[in-house]
């Protein structure tokens, strides 16, 4: 059965208006990515900014998905606004989908600003198709936003949400080759990287931006990201909570974690070898 999505358009519009009018949202979505851009460009990757861009975009997509998305969901639930929505005919699917669309639009703006300013300042090069690059970024957002919403459903309140987000954010950034070039990492960490979902986004972005790959050559990582999107969306349909007092469905949560783990174990075995672990020819 297709869920009733009445009110999706107006709710998405309302969510976007809320984000555009919130100073905190502007800081986290525009100022913060710029800070990462300049820190990486002027300090960590001086003189080699082309190499840093795929990882930087990945960090922006992950931090936006986890911190922005989960916090908004938790605070809206904690303030009783979600409960007020529950007293109308609006469905959980509508709320989750509107939150996802809002997050993807905001992330697109963050990434576009980072990509634009980054190009003006560092003149990085893109080997492959810009359209394919944009598609991979969008897919990355669509894959990680549901995981952020998952955290929003699991976290009890605004004290636990940052803890859980950070717990996931650090491995996703530092265990994926997003922060350092993967070829500089020790072998064991390169093996661990294959279990980290964001590695597939770094691999796909590097493929199109650094190596000029087409869609066919990126099929492996793109398939993993698509599956992450599907599994993440399924987790949200099982775990969405209307109010803080509603108990978390522990069985559904454990099932969701098991399915996600299974997905990444399978990916680590089945996906093609990462090209990002090979040192670039100079």
């Amino acid at each position, binding site marked *: 059965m297709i869920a009733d999505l*009445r009110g999706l358009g*107006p709710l998405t519009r*309302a969510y976007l208006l*809320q984000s555009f009018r919130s100073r905190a949202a502007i800081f986290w979505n525009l100022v913060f990515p710029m800070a990462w851009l300049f820190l990486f460009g002027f300090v960590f990757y001086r003189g080699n900014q082309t190499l840093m861009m795929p990882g930087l975009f990945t960090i922006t997509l992950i931090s936006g998905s986890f911190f922005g998305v989960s916090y908004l969901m938790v605070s809206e639930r904690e303030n009783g606004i979600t*409960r007020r929505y529950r007293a109308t*005919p609006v469905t959980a699917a509508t709320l989750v989908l509107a939150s996802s669309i809002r997050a993807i639009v905001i992330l697109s703006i963050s990434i576009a600003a980072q990509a634009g300013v980054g190009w003006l300042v560092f003149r990085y090069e893109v080997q492959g198709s810009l359209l394919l690059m944009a598609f991979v970024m969008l897919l990355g957002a669509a894959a990680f936003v549901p995981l952020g919403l998952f955290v929003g459903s699991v976290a009890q309140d605004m004290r636990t949400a940052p803890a859980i987000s950070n717990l996931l954010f650090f491995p996703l950034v530092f265990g994926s080759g997003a922060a350092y070039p993967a070829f500089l990492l020790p072998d064991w960490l390169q093996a661990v990287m294959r279990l980290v979902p964001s590695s597939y986004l770094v691999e796909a972005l590097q493929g199109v931006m650094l190596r000029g790959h087409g869609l066919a050559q990126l099929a492996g990582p793109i398939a993993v990201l698509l599956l992450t999107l599907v599994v993440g969306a399924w987790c949200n349909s099982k775990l969405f909570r209307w109010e803080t007092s509603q108990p978390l469905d522990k069985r559904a949560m454990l099932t969701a974690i098991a399915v996600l783990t299974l997905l990444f174990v399978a990916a680590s075995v089945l996906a093609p070898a990462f090209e990002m672990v090979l040192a670039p020819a100079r």
Partner: protein
Amino acid sequence: MIIEARGLRKTYGDNVALSGLDLEIEAGGVVAILGPNGAGKTTFVEILEGLRRPSAGSVSVLGMNPATDGRNLRERLGVQLQKTALPTELTVGEILYLFASFYRTSQPAGPILERIDLVKQVDQNASTLSGGQQQRLAIGMALIHDPELVILDEPTTGLDPKARRDLHEVIRELRGQGRTTLLTTHYIEEAEHLCDRVIMIRDGEVVADGTPFDLVGQSSESSTIWLHVDGEMDPAPLIAAGVAPLGRQGDHHKFATTDPTATVLALGDMLRSQGLRLIDLRLKRPSLEDVYLELMGDDAADEEHVA
């Protein structure tokens, strides 16, 4: 019956919020659920709204079971929750537009804004409204789909007297058009002046139910009568009619009676037979507040701090 509850129970751990509540409410008018904090008012209305599940018993609202047919019920039910939560960063007009989009049918916002007296605030960020204005907006949100049944949970708690009066005006206008309004309150005068029917609950049970007049009539408290006559009065005929003399207060003789109608009739006969002229007559019936205090006992005493 627009609302029917049978043996409704709700427990939170060892805490009993509703202990077998039976209630029928027919369509039309304004009905108050009156009771002290912790009496089970919010639990009851939130079960009607489908936001909570009863532990036992059955409930039907507009002929539907809120637990299983919630979505269809909410198309025809407007609610204002006890804790008003408005979406942040949105204007009054944007919030009404958003809520209208959730329903199959909705009314234009214009007349609703007039009814809740927020026409001038339509483009104002809702979080900058005063408490009374936010409560009126919450009622506007409950009315946007022209519901048959409106449930308001303590709409005036925490408001200053002026804001409370303005809100009473809004609630009075909800009458008519075949709409039923159910509101919870712990303000006695609100139930007395605003509502056609008052249901008092205590410890999750109905302890009194009727029009404000009925409830006052059921009181075991006596009425007080003050009489001022020209000349010497012999109260024997009144005492024979069951009236208790309470001495004098200035020029007035003071009496207590449990049947004021019979007392006034006996008084007329007495004045005629003793050839007296009545200068002043005052009658004080027990108020709804007296009835409330009688029924709520110690629970009501706790309430004084809140009200």
